[in-house]
């Protein structure tokens, strides 16, 4: 069996998301910069090894820039607004007095090492969370992810898939109209040129959506389900009850004064009923799925490695609080357990099969039928 995982194929997108959210949970459970850097490196390595060549595969780079910005902003804000921290002074800046309205906030003032380090660790944690999400975005095919939604949510998934396809089409259409409007004499002016671009693009979008709706209809989209009235009532009741349970449970979890039996048990119970409702709704959907992504050994390993990271990090935060949240003045240290929590995510990079390469990049389009030219 081990040989089958080595053949190039796309991993189940849900597996990548479980893995990434596990890593993100691990990162959110610690402020140890070393551990955070390990998590970031694990995501970067996995993306480098396992991403495909789809348009979304390049998303990680964007997240890296976002993460850098987050860290910098965090530190700069601490320096700007962070006066009042005691500790080792690095730099003495004059404190700018602010009016009484913004009491409690001071501008500039002494820059302390604790202050800067606190900002840095905080920023690193946010950056690590961002990069986990970025890794999932780069690794998991968003369309296949939407296809994995439960049958009851199929309509929502279909809407999202269409929305995703519309964006590049709108871009094509805008480019085409922009080129075409340059071919005619017409009055200038900012409002008018905006109109010259918008009207044809919107008309085009409307026509496309009508054509798409017709295309979906002639291929059987939205066929009558054959649910009886009793079935529909049961599904509706289950959904409403489940949602009520979730709402009450969430409230009780967040409000510490509420009775405890209202908290977790209610939340879980509500979720269970809601799932039952979804299953009941899904059972009457007369639709099937062509070549669904399957859960195989590799998917299980990848998802488990993410979960393991979260569990280990939770253990660290419980058993070794000084490792998880190190003193700001001391040099942070790693324990074996913490290192394991960080590195276990790397298992995914090894366990996941190599990606399928060779998808064609989107061509530059001039005319609507120009894609014929590009394709040939």
């Amino acid at each position, binding site marked *: 069996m081990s040989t089958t995982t080595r053949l190039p194929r796309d991993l189940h997108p849900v597996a990548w998301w479980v893995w990434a959210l596990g890593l993100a949970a691990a990162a959110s459970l610690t402020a140890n910069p070393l551990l955070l850097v390990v998590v970031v490196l694990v995501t970067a390595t996995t993306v480098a090894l396992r991403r495909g060549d789809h348009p979304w595969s390049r998303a990680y780079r964007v997240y890296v820039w976002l993460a850098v910005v987050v860290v910098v902003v965090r530190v700069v804000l601490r320096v700007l607004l962070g006066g009042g921290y005691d500790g080792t002074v690095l730099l003495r800046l004059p404190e700018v007095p602010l009016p009484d309205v913004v009491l409690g906030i001071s501008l500039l003032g002494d820059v302390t090492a604790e202050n800067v380090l606190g900002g840095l660790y905080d920023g690193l944690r946010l950056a690590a969370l961002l990069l986990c999400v970025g890794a999932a975005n780069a690794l998991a095919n968003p*369309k296949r992810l939407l296809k994995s939604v439960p049958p009851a949510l199929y309509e929502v998934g279909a809407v999202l*898939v*269409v929305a995703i396809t519309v964006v590049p089409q709108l871009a094509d259409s805008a480019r*085409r*109209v922009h*080129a*075409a*409007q*340059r*071919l*005619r*004499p*017409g*009055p*200038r002016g900012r409002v008018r040129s905006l*109109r010259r671009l918008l*009207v*044809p693009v919107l*008309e*085009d979008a409307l*026509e*496309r959506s*009508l*054509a*798409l*709706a*017709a*295309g*979906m*209809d*002639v*291929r*059987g*989209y*939205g*066929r009558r389900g054959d649910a009886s009235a009793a079935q529909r009532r049961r599904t509706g009741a289950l959904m409403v009850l489940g949602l009520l349970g979730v709402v009450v449970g969430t409230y009780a979890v967040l409000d510490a004064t509420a009775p405890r039996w209202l908290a977790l048990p209610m939340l879980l119970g509500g979720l269970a009923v809601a799932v039952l409702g979804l299953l009941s709704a899904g059972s009457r*959907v*007369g*639709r*099937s*799925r*062509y*070549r*669904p992504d399957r859960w195989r050994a590799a998917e299980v390993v990848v998802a488990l490695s993410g979960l393991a990271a979260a569990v280990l990090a939770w253990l660290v935060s419980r058993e070794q609080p000084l490792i998880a949240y190190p003193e700001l003045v001391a040099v942070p240290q790693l324990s074996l357990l913490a290192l394991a929590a960080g590195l276990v995510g790397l298992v995914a990079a090894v366990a996941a099969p190599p990606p399928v390469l060779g*998808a*064609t*990049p989107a*061509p*530059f389009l*001039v*005319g*609507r*039928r*120009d*894609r*014929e*030219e*590009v*394709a*040939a």
Partner: protein
Amino acid sequence: MIELRGVTVGYDPRAAGAARAGRPAAPPVLDAVDLVLEEGELVLVAGRTGVGKSTLLGVLSGLVPRFTGGRLSGSVLADGVDVTATPPRERTHLVGYVGQDPAAGFVTDTVEEELAYGMEQLGLPPTTMRRRVEETLDLLGVADLRDRDLRTLSGGQQQRVAIGSVLAMHPRFLVLDEPTSALDPTAAEEVLATLTRLVHDVGLGVVVAEHRLERVVPFADRMVLVAGGGAVRVGEPAAVLRDAGDDQPAPPIVELGRALGWSPLPLTVREARRRARGLDLTPPAEVPAPPAAARAEVRRLVVARGARTVLDEVSLTLGAGRTTALMGRNGAGKSTLLWTLQGASPGTRHGGTVRVAGADGGLVDPEDLPRDERWRRVGMVPQTAADLLYLETVAEECAAADEGAGTTPGACRDLLDAMVPGVPDDRHPRDLSEGQRLALVLAIVLVAEPDLLLLDEPTRGLDYPAKRVLARVLAQQTAAGRAVLVATHDVEFTALAADTVVVLGDGEVVSDGPVRRVVAESPSFAPQVTKVLGAGWLGVDEVVAARAGAAR
């Protein structure tokens, strides 16, 4: 078997703008139509633009009146069961429909998923879907494209995938709206061969609406002529075409047969050739074109898009007073050459020169012209001509063009009237017929009086009379000393309108010369009259003239 009984479709005048504009109520598009369609035959639906061909197809697929508005009376029976009120989604087992622009109807983004989409909606078991997808891939010859992104397919491939995506649901009838109008001659033949195979091997009933009769008539078992005024005529293609009036569309081969009094009318080139053996006519002598001043010159032009060479060392000269047709299969680089001549640089120029007539009479590189003023020197009508239009009425569009070009008010309207008289001022440009809309865009472009006129696939959706009007307009432009370049797949239009032909193949100029010589050289670009009578002949009118001369 599908049976239409007394089907009448009309668009309610109160709902549309007709009543507001004070126009009389529109007559029904289809009036008490009776029609029986059987499995295992290919039925061609013909008729002039806007006469109701698409409406007839919509009645079969169930899209009319659900997606178009209007009112439908009469009944549609499938094996005796009334399905008039059945929506398209419940007719998938009966009718598979492919629209004019197949790409607009694609729901997913790879070939395989697109083929499976309809079956997923039907809830077929996965093993059945898997088997049918493989069968469909083979039946349509698109197996090697299974993982391809739909957006990167060529027009012919997209058409075949669209056919496959409804075919996988195993309908008994296939209904197609202009399946070959956007395709080059070779791709069109592939699609038609596929359709014929479906009729013969699978026993499907195929209904095709098409303007380019010369392409479909040879394959058709029966023909439905939507004659206007809501009436239809049904029968053997030869009989229907023989009895149709001169105002009804007919392929050149039929016009030739009518002009020469052949009976029965030949429908294929083979039949016509046999009939033409007895003819003894001398083809018109080739008149060498007088030398003309160059309005545009391209020398050893190389254009690449990314790592792909689109145009490779292309050289060509467009002389004043001459119409040049630019031909070649889809993807040969025709559009790229047109846009490069316009100066919009659709790719990276890697060498060579492009020069067009400048303001002072000399030649300049179009890229050096001010970006928003290129229309003064180079007029261009792109593939989707409607992209140029953005106002609510024809009058506003004309006024905006006059104002932008700084001409006397009314100049654009005069140009429009010279091409197609009687377009109402208050009509929305989207409500015009294809021919009228093209004329409006041409008028807007010509207001600036450019020396060079470029047209990209102007004949899509035009019927034969509209094409003749376009050919006449182009002749007027060349008579005024302009150079015209038309990129087109339409060999009959080339024979009608062009003086010279340039054929592009894979970005290189494959042949270049007078139209008579070039179309005789390559069989796939030859018009029907050339195919029947041999080199030297282009159009039916030439044959008629030669015959009159011989009689004298």
